[in-house]
Structure formats: structure tokens, C-alpha cells
């Protein structure tokens, strides 16, 4: 039973990771590529880590309470938390750097940030 759950989780994780790299190729500009590259890899990594956590819990149950398998479960949870914290922050840093270095979104309907930055710069010059 639990093996089927592990297989399903592995399948979902690999599907979303592949989707992320295809989205990276297909989208037209930096910001939409960040959408694919951040969300899909984070979601896929969550499911891959959940599969490993299930596997470790199963080993922990089979081999007894004092075997070393608790390290597998807890360290995977810590790695998952690190990914969840650092990944969106890195995406935010890249997006801000791209906008400040002059890469504008392609085919944009509305761009409030550009207008506000232009206004602020004008005020500083006066």
C-alpha cells in the first residue's frame, strides 16, 4: 500500500520538474520564466521529499525505534524547509535585479513599478 503512495509521489514530482524545464524554454521573458522555474520546481521537490520521507518512515517502522533511520526523516524535513524558505526569496531577488538592470516585461498591459520609479527619479532631480 505505502509503496504505491511512494510511486505516485515520485511520478508527480518528476512530472512537475520536467514541466519547469519545459516552461523555462517556452516562455518569452524573464518574469514568466521565473514563474515556471520557481513554482514548479518547489512543488516537485516537495513531492520528491515526501516520497523519501514515506520511505524513511517505513524503514524506521520495520527496523525498530533506535535504528539510525530517524536521521533520514528529520534531515529530509529540514532540507524541505530550507528549499521552501530560500527559493521564493531568490526569485524575488532576481526579479528585482532584472527590473533595476533595465529588463522590462514583454507585452506588458500595465507597469506600475516603472511609472513609480520614473516619478521618484524626477522628484530627486528637482
Amino acid at each position: 500500500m505505502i509503496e504505491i503512495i511512494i510511486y505516485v509521489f515520485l511520478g508527480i514530482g518528476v512530472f512537475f520538474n520536467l514541466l519547469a524545464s519545459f516552461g523555462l524554454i517556452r516562455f518569452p521573458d524573464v518574469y514568466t520564466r521565473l514563474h515556471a522555474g520557481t513554482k514548479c520546481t518547489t512543488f516537485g521537490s516537495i513531492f520528491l521529499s515526501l516520497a523519501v520521507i514515506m520511505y524513511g518512515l517505513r524503514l524506521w517502522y520495520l527496523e525498530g525505534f533506535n535504528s539510525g533511520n530517524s536521521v533520514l526523516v528529520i534531515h529530509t524535513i529540514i532540507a524541505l524547509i530550507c528549499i521552501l524558505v530560500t527559493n521564493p526569496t531568490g526569485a524575488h531577488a532576481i526579479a528585482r535585479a532584472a527590473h533595476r538592470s533595465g529588463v522590462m516585461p514583454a507585452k506588458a498591459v500595465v507597469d506600475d513599478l516603472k511609472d513609480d520609479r520614473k516619478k521618484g527619479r524626477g522628484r530627486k532631480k528637482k
Partner: protein
Amino acid sequence: MKKFIVATVIGFLVYLLLTTSSGNDFFIWSYSEIVVGIIFAIIVGIIVRNVFIKDNFRMLNPVRWLVLLVYLIGPFFISMARANLDVAYRVITGRINPGIVKIDPKLKTDLGVTMLANSITLTPGTLSVDVDEDKNQLYIHWINVKEDALKKKPRDCKYVCGGFPKWVRRIAE
């Protein structure tokens, strides 16, 4: 002094999490691990006490952590799954309508703004690009701009991030 004690206790708990199943003197830890962990936690607490906690001790309340857990498992995870299906749809069809909008979530603390920005980055169709340092307003790249949202100048929150500011206010303020 209070900052030092909080940083030390949190460092010690993290060290205990890292060294599970090292013996069976004290549950699944051995005494030598605990002694070394206390020494390291004191060193780290002395170094980071002014950086780790600025001035507020709101997150020490365990009820807030419980609400955070409920938030992560419930609405956050569901909207994250919706986000990924949305991205899959856009990868296959290639239909986008992007723009950068400005919203005013009316949050006061740094932690609240950080949590809201990271939640927005991981949920459907939105990505936080920049933050106003004084007024805590967020600039958000939106992959599919709706016409209704463009009427007022600080755009309406409910189109972009749903009920997230309410949850974040309950957790971090």
C-alpha cells in the same frame, strides 16, 4: 538579555533536531551531545543576539505557530497545487497577459511583509518583484491581468492574493 536567551534556546532546539538517534541516555540523545549542544548554542546566541530578533517577541506565542501550521497545510497548499496546474496550462497553450501591479496589504511588521511576499510568489500567477521600504506596499508581476482590478490606483488585494493578508495578520501581527 531576553534576546540572548531566546536565540540560545532556539539554537539548542535546532541542534537537538540535527542529532537525533545518537544514543539512549535521554530519549534518543546521549549526554555528550547535549553538553556540546549547550556550549554551541551559547556561542551562537552571543554572536547573533542583535541580528536574530529586532524588537518584537510576538512569535514566541505557540498559538501563532499552530495557526501557521494550519495555514501551511490548508489554504496555502491548495492554492499552490492550483498554481502549478495553472502554470501547466500556460506552458501548453502559451496564453499570457502580463503586467506589474501595485497593492497595499496594510501590514505593519517586516515579518508579515516577508511572509506575504513569499506566499504570493508560490501561489497562482503572481510573483513579488519589489517592495516599498516605507509604506510596505508590494509590486507584483501578474501573469494574467484582469480588467476589473485596474480601476483604483493601489489595486485591490482580493484579485491578487485572496484571503492571504487576513491569515498573515493573524500569524505575524
